[in-house]
């Protein structure tokens, strides 16, 4: 089977202004959403307590909530987790609370109304640790960008390096925008997924740029725009098939991975879609608008012969 029997000839670069607009709008929307609405941050970042309980029968959310409110636990969120037997209790950190005692106290309060309840998972993160994880996460993303930028710079050329990094920067922003819109909790695993997406999206861009470099050598008569279009078209089949194959397994994770991996799987799914788009429409276009030309990629042959006056 072959979806791309002939090499396609889509004029991707011709419409690049349109895609700049689309990407720009998506990025601005994401940033605005992040500021206005914010992320539903998991306790990894906010600090606090998350407890997961399992009941042998259908869990009664209302009873659980009323058992806990007024128990001096501060703000309590109770919701189903995965299926109707499991509930998740989340407490936000508040002053003067000894985090070490919270899980014991909540468990005791729930056992009082139903002794069959089972504590399946407890996560207690002090506000200090949450702050550190946030900082470390930000640093990790920053470091990845710097290292990847340096690598593409050396391996290709500075214009391509900068374009690749900008095109890749675009992906995590849109993923975060997606998390802000949907209110899906963003946790450490989600952050790990973003880093994986950065690597993955750049991987796509690198494949295109590899071809661009090759084509600048073989298509000397063509304009940079033609070369860019040809390169994207020649690699299009691979880009789409690989993304399809990866999306296939990531969607399996989304469906089968359970509640714990929900944020992680969503970040990967959105990341693969956006990453594929940005490698096709954004990275090449930026390099083109930075006036990438054959001179940037083809080494000038240096004249090493010397003339010296006779002594």
């Amino acid at each position, binding site marked *: *089977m*072959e979806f791309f029997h002939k*090499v396609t000839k889509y004029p991707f670069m011709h419409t690049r202004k349109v895609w700049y607009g689309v990407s720009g709008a998506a990025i601005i929307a994401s940033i605005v959403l992040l500021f206005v609405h914010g992320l539903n941050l998991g306790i990894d970042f906010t600090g606090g307590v998350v407890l*997961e309980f*399992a009941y042998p029968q259908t869990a009664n959310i209302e009873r659980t909530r009323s058992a806990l409110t007024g128990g001096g636990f501060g703000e309590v969120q109770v919701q189903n987790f995965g299926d109707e037997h499991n509930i998740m209790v989340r407490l936000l950190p508040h002053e003067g609370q000894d*985090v*070490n005692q919270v*899980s*014991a106290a909540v468990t005791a309060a729930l056992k009082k109304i139903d002794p069959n309840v*089972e*504590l*399946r*998972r*407890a*996560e*207690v*993160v*002090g506000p*200090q*640790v949450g702050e550190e994880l946030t900082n470390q*996460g930000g640093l*990790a993303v920053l*470091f*990845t960008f710097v*290292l*990847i930028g340096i*690598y*593409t710079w050396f*391996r290709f050329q500075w214009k391509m390096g900068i374009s690749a990094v900008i095109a890749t920067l675009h992906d995590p922003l849109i993923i975060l925008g997606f998390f802000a819109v949907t209110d899906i909790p963003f946790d*450490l*695993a989600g*952050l*790990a997924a973003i880093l*994986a997406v950065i*690597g*993955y999206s*750049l*991987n796509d861009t*690198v*494949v295109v740029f*590899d*071809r661009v470099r090759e084509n600048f050598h073989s298509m000397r008569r063509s304009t940079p725009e033609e070369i860019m279009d040809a390169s994207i078209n020649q690699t299009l*089949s*691979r880009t789409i*098939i*690989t993304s399809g*194959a*990866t*999306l*296939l*397994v*990531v969607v*399996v*994770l989304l469906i*089968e*991975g*359970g509640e*714990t*991996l929900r944020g992680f799987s969503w970040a*990967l799914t959105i990341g693969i879609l956006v990453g594929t788009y940005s490698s096709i429409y954004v990275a090449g276009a930026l390099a083109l608008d930075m006036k990438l030309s054959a001179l940037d990629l083809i080494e000038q042959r240096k004249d090493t012969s010397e003339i010296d006056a006779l002594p």
Partner: protein
Amino acid sequence: MYQFAKWKYWLVIIVLVVGTLYALPNVFGEGPSLQLSRNDRTAMDQAKADQVLGLLSADTVPVEASYLEKDRLVLRFADAATQAKARETITKRGNGEFLVALSSASRAPAWMRAIGLKPMSLGLDLRGGVHFVYEVDVQGAIEQALDRMERDTRTTLRDKRIGYTSVTREGDVVRVVLRNADDESKAMDTLRTPDGGVLLSSSQSAEGPVVEMRMTPAEVKRRQDIAVQQNITTLRNRVDELGISEPIVTRQAINRIVVQLPGVNDPNEAIRILGATATLEFRLVDENNNPYEAQQTKRVPIGSKLMMERDGRPILVKRDIIATGEQLSDASFNFAEGAPQVNVTLDARGGKSMMETTKDNVGRRMAVVYIEKKQLAEGERCEGQRSGNLCTEESVINAATIQSVLSSSFRITGVQATEGKELALLLRSGALAAPQSIVEQRSVGPSLGADNIKRGVRAMAIGLVLTFVFMAIYYRAFGWVANAVLLANLILTVGLLSMLQASLSLPGIAAVVFHMGIAVDANILIYERIREELRAGNSPLAAINVGFEKAFATIADSNVTTLIAGVVLFAFGTGTIRSFAIVMTLGIITSLFTSVVGSRALVHAIWGRRRRLEHLSI
């Protein structure tokens, strides 16, 4: 046809065989087991193992496998019921000689274990267990040290009859105001410590000459290290007491301690036990009375206390306390002239009391008493004194003869190396500990852990089947090559993870699934190139060759970026995220090998030897 070096075939075969061998133990799964260690912390040996097996066979408890591992005896059973029965038998008939921990052990055959093949080590979110991060208040430790410095200074000046107006603490400075210049120079000489940990500076003030003492930054760092180390020691002792298999207690960053307890179901119970505190007392041994007699008649001489040594022998100690753990500033183990010794340092107050006591008691013995205070759970027995649900247990950890008059620093000799190390550890853990609190706690119940494994394996199986079908339809015969390569890649990844014993978490399994997509990418790149070459009118064999050649650079380039992300993630991530990073990084390495070398070998073996190849199934 094109040359394909023979050694590459061999390389592929050898790597695959070794990888499969390492991956193999994972196929057998795990069974319920018990891990036995000896109560007195000596190693389990074959004789003891036979004794335990004898107990079990007398009770007709069938044992599936038994072997010694890291000073412990591992017993594996067919099911949880047998495991429970065996535990009961051993606790009932073992005379309290063994610590029994519930655990699970691999069902892999004995020969695999014998050559060191082990299944992957599962993270806490898969096997169940608790994970704590303690934060040690290192500033508190410095405060304690400064308080001690202030007290010691006063004692020292008084002892040396140096006139002073005041000794005060202002922040991290101890300020001494002296009567006159003569006292000042004497004070400067006296207060200078031999190790140079304290900086002295003198100046003049309205009240008189002033000497200011502050700790050097190196000293502050050393004190913080000691404080954290001390708390780690105390936690390790507690954890040992829990008798669980493969616990982890390690330092993280400057002031954090990570404790991981696999298989522990109740985090609150663990917190309670780990929260026990210890202290020390130095007392003289009562050598005029017979401890065995006192134990039997239950009549303890006036002025003495009956205690137990660690090996269970009774000992009588005097009621008067010479010094306590609060006055202990350091204890370390080392060798002097080849003989092991424990060096003990007390503060000035403790040193003074030590000198006063020992000068009349040279030739007698001095005992070190280790006192533990812990909260009791319902139904838990207290070996010592009980008040409410607080239990105080005392034991004598060392009783040595006083050779000469001792002061604030002395050494304990005549101990075995292991005994000496243990003694130094216990001494330090009984010193005044820096306060610590739990800043992070994660626990996963065993049922959730099992669910996570089930989910992960299911996602992996479905992902694999879908990828297989997709590749087979899209690339036909070459698709099956890609599938074989993907399978080899999975086996190698699992083999590497088993070899490195890096713990696998749920995000780690997710990385394996995600990685399947990335792993087929290398093959897709190659096949697309081959198709391109075919379209350009090249012969099938030439197309294969050029396809592999040209795709290689792209594959390498594109994988480096993912590798960078993986390495950064590894450096910054902790716990479950680190597992994700490890799998991602290892996966890229294995997929580079399998797709570039392995895939080419396979393609060459199938198509490369044909004289005439008109058509490729791609």
